[in-house]
């Protein structure tokens, strides 16, 4: 009895709200700090720009927590219309049956204007875009130009061979930390494999089927990791826990370390930390000599439309996605965070803007260039099950190698073996599902 009264009251409330406002809908995101500020500013700008729809943007603290809550919310049917998910959760979402492909909901958008590296990560094997890339990052090479010049390096390094040469000079001049890495798979492993055109797993990193197996332990990547170990012994490379800060971005930003590879999303923080002290230079990530450069993967996150909402909410969500796609909104995001624009037309808009050429948009051109390099079927993205869990396995095994308790090859072989077990279990879990 009570329940039905409550239900009636709720229905009345909803009716009252919907007549006052066409659609209220929620958007969940996982970022904090300067990115969160930028997202909230965009939400406010959208709400101010029109009166037909109202978006409520809810921060969840991190990508992982956001995904956890989405899973719980979806299972209890309380999920938002729009939700931002990170790159590593892509396959879980494709097979979840909880989201609708964004290209089906918005068929008239020119989806081909999206930069290639970002598109291919979030599209089906048939080429249909599943989610709208939003805060896209990619890996860039950060250099403390001041420190390098002090050590006598005038030409900024472009290849790994250059890096090591510069690192030796830095070390000789008394610099304690020439190059630093966080050892995380996204930067140290995935982006390296992509741009060198190396497969991570068979079946084109899983795009052709759930029966893929990891192969990274047999590619040139294994050699690169062994190099990192050797260079670390030589005192040229440090990992995050070797640094005073215990955090590689902080170690670079404070001037402790002179070179690193990091997400374009951390550009603004680095540039703020450097202001007045050092000169910062960002460029394409280093290649080994003799390897042809391919596209890097997109990082950051994209926005999915979740199933089970009524048409008015979907319409509101569509308007919001259209709004975020606008060049000026993308430029705003790039300028305030360092994330890379996701559509190609934004570069023109930046070139025409009064701030063109300033450090505000320093990551835009180089980030887009990096993701638009020629690709192969192995550089489309990663379509491997339980991939988040695999990333932590990868970290665990390689950390042991960096600490010296096992060799790097053994670490990679272990990671492959444990990773393959995850893939087989994922395959069994989704036995009846079909990869879109």
């Amino acid at each position, binding site marked *: 009895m009570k329940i039905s009264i409550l239900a009636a009251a709720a229905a009345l409330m909803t009716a009252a709200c919907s007549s006052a406002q066409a659609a209220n809908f929620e958007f969940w995101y996982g970022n904090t700090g300067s990115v969160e500020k930028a997202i909230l500013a965009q939400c406010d700008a959208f709400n101010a720009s029109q009166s037909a729809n109202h978006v409520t943007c809810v921060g969840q603290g991190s990508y*992982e927590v956001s*995904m*956890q809550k989405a*899973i719980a919310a*979806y*299972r209890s049917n309380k999920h938002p219309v729009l939700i931002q998910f990170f790159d590593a959760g892509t396959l*879980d979402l494709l*097979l*979840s*049956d*909880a989201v609708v492909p964004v290209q089906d909901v918005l068929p008239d958008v020119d989806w081909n204007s999206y930069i290639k590296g970002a598109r291919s990560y979030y599209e089906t094997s048939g080429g249909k875009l599943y989610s709208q890339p939003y805060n896209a990052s990619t890996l860039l090479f950060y250099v403390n130009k001041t420190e390098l010049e002090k050590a006598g390096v005038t030409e900024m390094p472009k290849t790994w061979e250059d890096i090591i040469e510069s690192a030796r000079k830095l070390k000789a001049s008394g610099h304690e930390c020439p190059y630093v890495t966080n050892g995380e798979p996204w930067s140290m492993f995935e982006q390296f494999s992509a741009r060198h055109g190396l497969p991570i797993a068979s079946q084109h990193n899983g795009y052709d089927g759930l029966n893929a197996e990891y192969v990274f332990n047999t590619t040139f990547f294994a050699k690169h990791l062994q190099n990192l170990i050797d260079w670390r012994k030589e005192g040229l490379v440090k990992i*995050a*826990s*070797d640094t*005073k800060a*215990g955090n590689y971005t902080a170690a670079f930003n404070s001037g402790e370390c002179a070179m690193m590879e990091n997400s374009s999303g951390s550009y603004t923080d680095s540039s703020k930390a450097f202001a007045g002290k050092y000169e910062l230079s960002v460029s394409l990530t280093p290649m080994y000599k003799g390897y042809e450069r391919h596209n890097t993967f997109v990082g950051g996150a994209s926005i999915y439309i979740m199933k089970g909402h009524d048409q008015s909410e979907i319409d509101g969500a569509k308007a919001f996605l259209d709004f975020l796609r606008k060049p000026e909104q993308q430029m705003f995001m790039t300028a305030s965070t360092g994330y890379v624009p996701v559509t190609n037309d934004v570069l023109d808009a930046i070139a025409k803007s009064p701030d063109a050429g300033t450090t505000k948009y320093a990551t835009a051109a180089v980030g887009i260039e990096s993701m638009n390099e020629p690709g192969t079927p192995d550089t489309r993205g990663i379509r491997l099950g*339980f991939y*988040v*869990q695999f990333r*932590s396995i990868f*970290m*665990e*095994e390689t*950390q*042991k190698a*960096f*600490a010296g*308790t096992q060799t790097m090859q053994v670490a990679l072989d272990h990671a492959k073996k*444990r990773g393959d077990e*995850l893939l087989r*279990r994922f395959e*069994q*879990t*989704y*036995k*009846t*599902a079909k990869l879109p």
Partner: protein
Amino acid sequence: MTSESSLFSHRWLPALLAAPLLLLILIFFYAPIVQAFYWSFFLERPFGGGSEFVGWDNFRRVLSDPEFWDAGWRTVIFMVFASSLAVALPLILAVAADRKIRLSLTARNVLVWPKGVAGASIGVVFAFIFNPFVGILAPINHFFPGAWAPGLDGTDAFITLIVAHVWGGIPFNFVILLAGLQSIPRTMFQAAAMDGAGPWRRIFDVQLPLIMPQLFLTLVLEFTESVTSAFALIDTITKGGPGGSTNLLVYKIYTDGFSGYDLSGASTQTAILMVFVVILTAAQFLLLGGSVNYER
């Protein structure tokens, strides 16, 4: 004469009064456990739908996984070291505070305060205290570079966790043990002293036997708590690293389930861990409980 049952005139009233709490326990304690056991027999998809019954397959997989056993052993080692230290240290402090030595009154107050600090906060503070470059052990690294490196060396990271856990466990156990010590009649003490028993003799022959119930209580609580409460510390200090060396079961379950979306595997491990804790607690009551004398 009032019989006890006449306090409640209606036979359903007591049940009714207890019902809200029982209901809460049912919803928030037993229901999730039932759910965990249920999921441990299925291959569960994160977003639901299409779940498949696999019988004992999940248990077979988990029990044949060397990572699970490694995490299990780490849990046992942590439990034994951390909980015995977390009882022994407060015991020493309680004996000292009970002696009315100088400042013991102040100490009694100061030692209780840490109870108010949440596990995660303890973690953040200890991560800083044991930082190899700026923490209290940094001077060691100055003379022997790399001697203390919790970011690289698993043993160092493990020690950090144990110290943080023991520190967090001091207040509660201290209060319980001190209360036990203070309830010992002074006359027994004085009699022992008159018989020529020195301070140590009095501790081992009078005080310890008489606070057995309190010791037993703190030990049982510590044993079960160390299995689960390490989570906040691991999450804030080590994240299970380096190289998985501090990945205790309770943290592994969390990361498998919520970061890795392996709900079935996490449920299976939860079920196994729960059975383990139940057996352990039962064993303590059966083996130690019998020798505890509650009479004074």
